[in-house]
């Protein structure tokens, strides 16, 4: 049984249908990648899975439990954590307080070791631990957002374009971090425009087009797919 399963999902904004008939299954320990052009509905799907948007139709199950009607904050407590598009940094909190928010759902404890782990991954955050989140540079905010999600040690980590706005060197680092946390047992659902690198680490991948799922396969399969190459991999 998949750890996280999305079945026949449909989400609307008002009367506008953003996605429909989305089926994604993520097995425990996998890295699954969603790719698709702008406006294809990737973010919408992620937000629906994490409970920020309501499913109009379809179901979302996590560890066999139907969470479709569960509120967002309850899903976090169950172990689903999203790094949102646009980062979602609390602008008026310091870097450290932002990280601390990552542990909000954890009952009581506030493990120093988690901070160490994050600071080790992102030394810049340690340097700036008292700077206000809102004044960090674009890339720094992205680090903070990922670091914050890691603080919660989620079972499934949803990442919405984590490489956006990062310097090339850093993008590579992010992908190795993703692999690392995955190898430590965290399941990852990833949305990426950087399809080359994403597909390289993906166990499986799905292609979204205009709100519908058009292709699924292993990372390798899609990497080799010609049409995919043309559009998402930049012919490279």
């Amino acid at each position, binding site marked *: 049984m998949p750890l996280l399963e999305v079945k026949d999902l449909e989400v609307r904004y008002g009367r506008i249908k953003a996605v429909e008939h989305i089926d994604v299954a993520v097995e425990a320990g996998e890295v699954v990648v969603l790719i698709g052009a702008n406006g294809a509905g990737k973010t919408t799907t992620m937000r629906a899975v994490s409970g920020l948007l309501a499913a109009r139709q379809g179901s979302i199950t996590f560890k066999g439990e139907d969470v479709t009607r569960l509120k967002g*904050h309850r899903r976090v407590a169950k172990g689903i954590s999203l790094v949102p598009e646009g980062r979602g940094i609390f602008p008026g909190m310091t870097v450290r307080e932002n990280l601390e*928010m990552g542990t909000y759902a954890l009952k009581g404890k506030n493990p120093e070791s988690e901070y160490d782990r994050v600071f080790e991954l992102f030394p810049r955050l340690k340097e700036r631990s008292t700077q206000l989140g809102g004044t960090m540079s674009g890339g720094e905010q992205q680090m903070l957002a990922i670091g914050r999600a890691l603080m919660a040690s989620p079972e499934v980590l949803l990442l919405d374009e984590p490489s956006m706005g990062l310097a090339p060197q850093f993008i590579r680092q992010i992908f190795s971090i993703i692999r690392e946390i995955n190898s430590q047992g965290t399941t990852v659902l990833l949305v990426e425009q950087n399809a080359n690198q994403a597909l390289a680490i993906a166990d499986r991948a799905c292609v979204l087009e205009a709100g519908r799922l058009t292709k699924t396969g292993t990372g390798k399969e899609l990497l080799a797919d010609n049409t995919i190459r043309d559009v998402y991999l930049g012919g490279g």
Partner: protein
Amino acid sequence: MSGEWISFDFGALLNSFWATTFDGLTLGAIYALVALGYTLVYGVLNLINFAHSEVFIAGAFAVVFFLSSLGFGPSAPTLPLGMLILDLVLAGIIAMVVSGGTAIIVERVAYKPLRDRGASRLAFLISAIGMSFVLQYIFFEWRGPNAEPSVTMFRPKPIFEVFGAIIDSQQLTIVIAALIMMVCVDQVVRRTKLGRGIRAVAQDPDTATLMGVNRERIIVATFAIGGFLAGAAALFYVMRVPAGVFYMGGFILGIKAFTAAVLGGIGNVRGALLGGLLVGLIGNYGATILGDSQWTDVVIFVVLILVLMIRPNGILGTNLGEARV
């Protein structure tokens, strides 16, 4: 008044400086408690809870009803101190419950449905104003235009003298109790999980949800805390201003409290405290220097404008808007 309509008499202030100061602080403590309610709700929802003044006056009505049902009346009762304190604490608790309840009702009726529909900020403001009207005129229809008969809890007794000014038992009770409450709230917001939740929801409601913050519960809790503080303020208000409980009583005090919150930097808990005390002081000083109580509000608003010109986000407020482009 006759003659010159404006004249400055600093001598008058010097003569009674300390007495004016202590009194301003007492009044300011009440403003600060109410201002906290504005600031907390503003902090979490970014909106002026216009109905907060009615939340406050609801508590004041509760205090009056409860105390008069206990037999408190126009003259100070002759109760043993312990009994008196017990009665007052009970009255305070009831006021807090009533105000807190009213606050939650306001939230559920006037804000929650709008939030669910993603209404604009102005819509919230108008809805709050509507709710404020509703509550005011419920009180009006129920109790009429006149203030409630006064209940006297105790006659203020001089306790000690500072710089020639007498500080009485009433002032002392109000200031100490109010300060304790404000410190508690400050600590709650700064140190507890609830406080972190409040700040998170304030800054980014969606991301707060992603952190596992139950936004609805945080909002209700914030309104409730604001309500509790307003209830406490109501007890002190009735203590100090016995014939001040009537349907518009909240509105009049509410504007000052709100001014206090803005002066201190709305959204900032310590700012509300500072702003409250300042508004109390400024009003008293201004009225004394200018010779008429009629100047009180003019002076308060002029100072507000001047302060905001120098610090556009209030004394302790920070500006996040321009942080990044």
